[in-house]
């Protein structure tokens, strides 16, 4: 299950009541490809089934087991505090994008000035409208931004109250309204599920949601360990 496709097995190095889950690896620089990061993620998911985990940054390599043990010993109280913080909590990911066809139609309907500009440009020969068309593009982009903020606010208002912590990530994708992770107490998970479903139903015509509930809590713990 280790990274690199060599079929290395996972095992633990223990100190007191905590343990590091490791596998053998040559000391190399691993590419941050999906194949490699998925191997890392899958390994953590397996451990998560039975234990509280603190994900360590992808491709953290130590020279030998002794060093790992020393790290566990030295950082013991920090790790214990974090484990307590993460106990009985789950990271739930919510992502939402606009349905591309619908949102641009909605914008034209809602923003009269863009619609008028567009209708005007359509009557002119295209070689005379370069700057006008650029202006339309800019205005549509600004409108899209405004629309995103409106929906993002509603989604956050609906879900944040049920979470112990919220982390909003950048998506680098113009259609994405929100890319957020919520750290939720396990006994509130059902209620959280329900709220996400309600949002999905409320916006079924123009927004596509993705709800992810089994990933490691990378957004709330991602230990960077110098080895």
């Amino acid at each position: 299950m280790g990274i690199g496709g060599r079929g290395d097995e996972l095992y633990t190095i223990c100190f007191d009541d905590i343990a590091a889950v490791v596998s053998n690896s040559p000391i190399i620089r691993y590419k941050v490809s999906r194949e490699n990061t998925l191997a890392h993620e899958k390994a953590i998911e397996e451990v998560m089934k039975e234990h509280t985990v603190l994900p360590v940054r992808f491709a953290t390599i130590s020279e030998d087991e002794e060093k790992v043990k020393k790290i566990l010993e030295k950082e013991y109280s920090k790790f214990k505090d974090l484990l307590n913080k993460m106990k009985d909590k789950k990271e739930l990911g919510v992502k939402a994008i606009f349905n591309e066809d619908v949102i641009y139609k909605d914008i034209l309907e809602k923003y009269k000035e863009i619609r008028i500009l567009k209708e005007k440009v359509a009557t002119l020969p295209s070689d005379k409208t370069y700057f006008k068309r650029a202006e339309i593009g800019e205005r549509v982009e600004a409108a899209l931004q405004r629309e995103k903020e409106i929906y993002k606010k509603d989604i956050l208002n609906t879900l944040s109250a049920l979470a112990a912590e919220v982390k909003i990530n950048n998506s680098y994708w113009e259609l994405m309204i929100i890319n957020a992770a919520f750290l939720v107490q396990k006994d509130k998970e059902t209620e959280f599920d329900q709220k996400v479903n309600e949002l999905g139903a409320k916006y079924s015509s123009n927004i596509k949601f993705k709800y992810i509930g089994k990933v490691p809590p990378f957004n709330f713990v991602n230990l960077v360990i110098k080895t």
Partner: protein
Amino acid sequence: MLGYLLYQILVAPTAKICKNIVEKITDMAENELYGEDKIKTEIVKLQMMLEMDEITEKQYDEAESILMKRLEEGAKRRQSNEM
């Protein structure tokens, strides 16, 4: 941005400004293709598209391998520029 720069070229009074602009465009193109942050941003966007089922795993893998190659090529180019 590129549109603006081209416009500047058309009206630039001296060859020197022209040269500067050409260099600027070359830099921009270089950055567009091999800039580390640019490529990483592209990869994150691709991951999002895959997660939202807007592209298939196959499409993702193909695009990722192109971007990874550009990332490596960019690192090489920066290294040889520094030398």
